[in-house]
């Protein structure tokens, strides 16, 4: 069976409940759904963040996410559906940034695939965040902890 994969990059907000319903509707083989929602924080260390602006590489971003969705399905054949929505544009604290939804019969595959996809999105998908804090606007630097999180999947 082909695993349904939904990938969208959009300015608009997403509705988690609607995305889960779209993924599970009419299916009785799904026993577990894991969602990861990334939100814009207003606090970064001791600083206040006023807004984030997300830029992406149109075309490449969708293709790279699709490639890694395919890889997740290859690694965890028990995964039965995937949805990835990434927002771009200007976002303020509390706004949704990214949604990863994974479904499987039992929970292990759904959890593992969701973590894998998030680790990948953080480090390899062509998106860049610009942050407004303390009256200045600056590009967010990549975190070494995200590279470390990604590295654990190459041992498999």
């Amino acid at each position, binding site marked *: 069976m082909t695993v349904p994969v939904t990938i969208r990059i959009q300015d608009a907000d997403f509705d988690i409940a609607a995305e889960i319903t779209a993924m599970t509707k009419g299916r009785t083989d799904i026993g577990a759904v894991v969602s990861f929602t990334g939100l814009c924080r207003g606090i970064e260390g001791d600083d206040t963040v006023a807004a984030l602006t997300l830029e992406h590489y149109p075309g490449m971003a969708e293709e790279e996410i699709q490639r890694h969705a395919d890889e997740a399905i290859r690694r965890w054949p028990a995964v039965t559906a995937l949805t990835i929505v*990434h927002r771009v544009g200007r976002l303020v604290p509390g706004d949704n940034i990214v949604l990863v939804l994974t479904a499987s019969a039992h929970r292990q595959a759904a959890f593992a695939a969701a973590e894998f996809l998030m680790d990948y999105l953080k480090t390899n998908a062509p*998106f860049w965040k610009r942050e407004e804090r303390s009256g200045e606007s600056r590009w967010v630097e*990549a975190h070494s902890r995200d590279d470390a999180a990604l590295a654990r999947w190459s041992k498999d």
Partner: protein
Amino acid sequence: MKVKYFAWVRERIGVDEEIVEPPPAVATVADLIGWLAARGDGYALAFEKPGVIRAAIDRAHVRAETPIAGAREVAFFPPMTGG
């Protein structure tokens, strides 16, 4: 070939894409970075630390030593910070 720039690479260069025709001696991604860096102050600033620059050819991640022959679209950008 078309060259695209993102995030602070784009800001420093001042354009988001352009058509360039490097000479045949410019064979790899690293060569192209060196050639572009000589085009002006914005380029020099964008590529001042070539080691941090990431590149893609025709929408796939590549390394500095990857040949650019046959490339239609080459993109340069900082480490990604999505998710």
